[in-house]
């Protein structure tokens, strides 16, 4: 279950999100560049404070500005994929994925599902854009998050990889039934993938 009510004034621009669903869904936050879409994700993840917010995830309130509840980033259990993935360059793929998770069947399944088993001992610098994204996804899923945030997940990929990647996100959603919020400026991505589009104007 996911409930997000968030309001924030940024550069004279009122940013607003209202999400209230009992079933997991894929949401797209759509709007032009520079309007504050990433800021919204940062606020959901707890990296930044918002003017008013109420966020409830699987029954836990993780943020409520009225009650002065503000759960720490580390305790929110939200998987966040930055646009540039931010893999840890001093660790190989497997070490990246097991950074906060012990080796387990869950991890093995992720490696297999995301088709990165053969990359286990590679270092991030050697990976292609698509591979790096799959590794980052596996790493985000390794801790079994309650919500996944994707910042412009497809914008830096070539067309073929983009189609694959969108397919993969859909697949992950179906497999794991975790709500996903992604940010995009593309109409196509939003309508093709999301169950619900949140327009920021």
């Amino acid at each position, binding site marked *: 279950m996911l409930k997000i009510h968030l309001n924030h004034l940024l550069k004279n621009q009122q940013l607003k999100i209202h999400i209230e669903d009992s079933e997991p869904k894929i949401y797209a936050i759509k709007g032009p560049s520079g309007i504050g879409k990433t800021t919204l994700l940062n606020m959901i993840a707890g*990296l930044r404070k918002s003017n008013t917010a109420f966020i409830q995830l699987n029954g836990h309130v993780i943020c409520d500005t009225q009650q002065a509840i503000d759960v720490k980033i580390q305790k929110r259990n939200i998987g*966040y994929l*930055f646009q540039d993935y*931010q893999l840890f*360059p*001093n660790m190989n793929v497997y070490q990246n994925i097991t950074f906060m998770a012990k080796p387990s069947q869950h991890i093995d399944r992720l490696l297999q599902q995301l088709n990165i088993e053969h990359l286990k001992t590679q270092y991030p610098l050697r990976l292609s854009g698509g591979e790096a994204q799959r590794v980052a996804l596996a790493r985000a899923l390794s*801790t079994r998050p309650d919500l996944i945030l994707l910042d412009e997940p497809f914008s830096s990929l070539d067309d073929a990889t983009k189609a694959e990647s969108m397919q993969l996100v859909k697949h992950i959603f179906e497999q794991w039934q975790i709500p996903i919020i992604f940010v995009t400026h593309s109409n196509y991505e939003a309508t093709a993938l999301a169950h619900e589009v949140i327009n920021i104007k």
Partner: protein
Amino acid sequence: MQDMTPFWISLKVALISTIIVTFMGILISKWLYKRHGIIARILESVIVLPIVLPPTVMGFILLIVFSPQSYVGAFFKDILNMPVVFTLTGAVIASVIVSFPLMYQHTVQGFRNIDHKMLNTARTMGASENKIFFKLIFPLSKRPILSGIMMSFARAIGEFGATLMVAGYIPNKTNTLPLEIYFLVEQGKENQAWLWVIVLVAFAITVIGTINILNKDRFREVD
């Protein structure tokens, strides 16, 4: 055969000083790299001061602070049983003070250069600040830390002004190589001074070469 004592004294002073500076540099950088408040800024300015001040000024201040008449000096002399003025301890303290800013600047810059988003990724995964420091910030700053160590070591080996003021030139006790060279030339023994000059140059080249080799990062290779 020339007496090697000045060489060993120099090496001893520089090694002890570099070890102290390395630990202090990493600890204080860890404490300060995330802070941008007024107190942190003042503290940073004080740390960096010896880079700007003439070594004789630092030496003068140290001499006042550590003179047996002062509280600090008395504490070192009577309680720690480790007099500072005109001793090897004084030479080490002088080296630490003048080389610390180099170590600090390299280390803290290294820590600050790491992408915040990477650290935030680790935070969203639930990693503690300690884990983030020891698994990410510290290993990813290996290169700046090594450069800092190299620079502080070189600075400690070359330290002259502050050392002369605090530790003086006492043969077989505080005559580090730069002091030895100065006093040999002053006494007209240029031939003997030459040897130490060559030793220092060779030493500097070896140290820089070694650290450059150590400095190669596996994960930074780009093809």
